[in-house]
């Protein structure tokens, strides 16, 4: 188990597909832990995000019971209630978005992290 840290606000997990700021499941605790960035990761000049470790965090720990929020029966109806009324459905939507981001993070790594360099790279190519 690598060293962990609470999910920093600039973590790639917040923008691998959807832009998300909170990670609710059936519960909406903000406490989520991921692998800590190496101590030498710094804010590089002109780079709005931290260049986090190139790989993917091997573990995401949180107590929000995401699987319950995602679970559906054979007709696609949710198995567990999430929150109340419309706000609850919105929470379920966010839970699904978090799930998609998680899968995208596993598949594409920090692809979205270096997307921000692409304009700079293209700029450089022309020279």
């Amino acid at each position, binding site marked *: 188990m690598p060293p962990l840290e609470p999910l920093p606000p600039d973590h790639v997990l917040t*923008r*691998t*597909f*959807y*832009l998300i700021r909170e990670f609710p499941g059936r519960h909406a605790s903000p406490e989520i832990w991921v692998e800590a960035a190496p101590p030498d990761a710094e804010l590089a000049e002109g780079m709005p995000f931290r260049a986090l470790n*190139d*790989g*993917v965090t091997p573990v995401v720990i949180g107590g929000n019971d995401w699987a319950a929020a995602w679970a559906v029966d054979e007709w696609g109806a949710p198995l567990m209630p999430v929150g109340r009324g419309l706000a609850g459905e919105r929470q379920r939507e966010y839970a699904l*978005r978090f799930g998609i981001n998680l*899968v*995208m993070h596993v*598949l*594409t*790594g920090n*692809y*979205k992290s*270096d*997307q921000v360099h*692409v304009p700079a*790279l*293209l700029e*450089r*190519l*022309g020279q």
Partner: protein
Amino acid sequence: MTVAERLILDPLLPWPWIGVIAVLATLAAGLALWRGLRGWWLRALAAASLTLALLGPAIEEERRQPLTDIVLAVVDESASQRLGDRPAQSEAALEALRAEIAQRPGTELRVARLPDAEGEGGTFLMRALAEALAAEPPGRIAAVVLITDGQVHDMSALPALPAPLHALITGRADDWDRRLILRNAPAFAILGEEITLTLRIEDQGAAPGAELVPLTIAVDGGEPLHFEVPVGRDMDLPLVLPHGGMNTLRFETPPAPGELTDRNNAAIVQINGVRDRLRVLLVSGEPHPGERTWRNLLKSDASVDLVHFTILRPPEKQDGVPVDELSLIAFPTRELFVERLEDFDLVIFDRYRRRGILPNEYLQNVADYVMRGGAVLVSAGPEYGGVESVYRSPLGAVLPGAPTARVLEEGYVPRLSGTGERHPVTEGLPAFAPRPPAEDGTPGWGRWFRLVEVIPDPRAQVVMEGPQGRPLLLLSHVGEGRTALLASDHAWLWDRGFEGGGPQLELLRRLAHWLMKEPELEEEALWAEVQGQTLRIIRRTLADEAGPVTVTAPDGTETVLTLDPVSPGRYETQWTAPETGLYRLTDGEHDAVVAIGPAAPREFEATIATGDILAPAVEQTRGGLLRIEDGLPDLREVREGRPAAGRGWIGLIPREAHLVTDLRISPLLPAWAWLLIASILILGAWLREGRRQGRPPARAS
């Protein structure tokens, strides 16, 4: 044999004691004089004779054997002394010197010869002189004669000379030489950036004064380009390296009739072409497990600028989520595939499927880019066999395999094909596997589970195979460019260590570099590695055998060598080159140029014989500096400190050195003689004083 004698003192007591005794004796004699003793002078003489006896005077007798005087001749036999008739001149001068010395009794000649220095040393004549001097006793050296062309590279090592230094300079007044000088040649250059070489063709000595001379420039042993260039002027030569890796450039001006040597008419420079940054465009058609393998590979290389686009959401999928809640950006297709395509060294389509994102014109653009020298790698997933395959686009014309629409989903161990064992992309790859190959030759790496069946293009080389020999990795030369097709997207299983994993990193790295025309990964190549004087000639080929290689030495002699197979597709031989210089290798199809030692060694930098370098040293000893061409000098004897050379003669200083064969020391007088002398003097003094005492003055009463 001569005998020499001299008087020496051999005191019996230490000098201070003798001094004390002498002082006491003088005081005693003084007292005697003061007291008016009549025998005072006899007392003084007796004391003096005793003191003298203590000093022990003796005769030293030396028997001497005269020794011959030595004339030391140092003959420069470095490479520049082998030009023209200089060897004959040197030998004639040495013979004349030998004959002259043979006529002189008591004089002998010692000859030291100076060969070429190791490597790019030059003429270390002073070092040779110092060594020769150290071997002879300095007292016997009558003269030192250097026979050389005067091009000495170690004048600072001039030893202290006990005798006049004479220099006999070879060469002729009408000698001239043309040489090519290459200044500021860099060892590395960035591809695509202009570097400037400074080139100069210089005539030395009594040159005929040509204004323009021909110059040929050949790159990598290719067809030479011809130019006419002025003599004696620095020329700036702008150059852009044609490819990465070692670029061998050869500059040559043909030998002019009458010049001393053509060894300095060529210069070879090897410049390592380094890519500034490798620009790779990776287009992933969808997020999939192998994507991170590509990213890890390309991002782990600090010299790669990766521009990566993943099609996270194809245009046909819309779910009404507001754009500001999505982390999606538009794929800048026009910028990448129209405006900036030429800036990329490699374009990778990773499980890309046609989804209306890239119009056919853009893919046509990519195909044209390959024809013009670009590189495209397609890493195919099941979509390659489908209707959305990139093969069914204008890009298909340059791809090395056509899909049959069949996708095999079964476990298999990828294997090298017969071509693959020889191809530099896959050659020796099983050695990188985590396990040694099994007995039936199955490489020791993990299985893959998907293969898109393809029919190879006639131009393509199949280097890896899947089940039942179906092509897995195909390479193709298209136009000026290259394409490759990996008919499976399961290379990532090797990366993750499934069943031990496999050398995915090495394979994909070599594949990418081959696509970008790294010279080290050319299929057909002839090159040589130099180690000292040994050439290791290597031929890599996809053919079943390699023809003989003809080696052309700097002097034009040709040697035909046959190469021995060392591994599939690799043939080698070792050959010891007879001399330094440029060697040309050819097997009829491929050419290579290799330089053993410097192309134009230091010896050939300045070839015109001159006395200017040696003149200060010669003047210091008042010796002579003569050109052999003007006649050989006589030998004359001179005294030390006098001018030791003149018109047509050089001087040697007679040393009269000798060897002492016998040394004998005998006392001047025996001890008893001293005793006798002292006794007589003392007795004399006593008698003289006693006689006076014997007649006392009359007493007055």
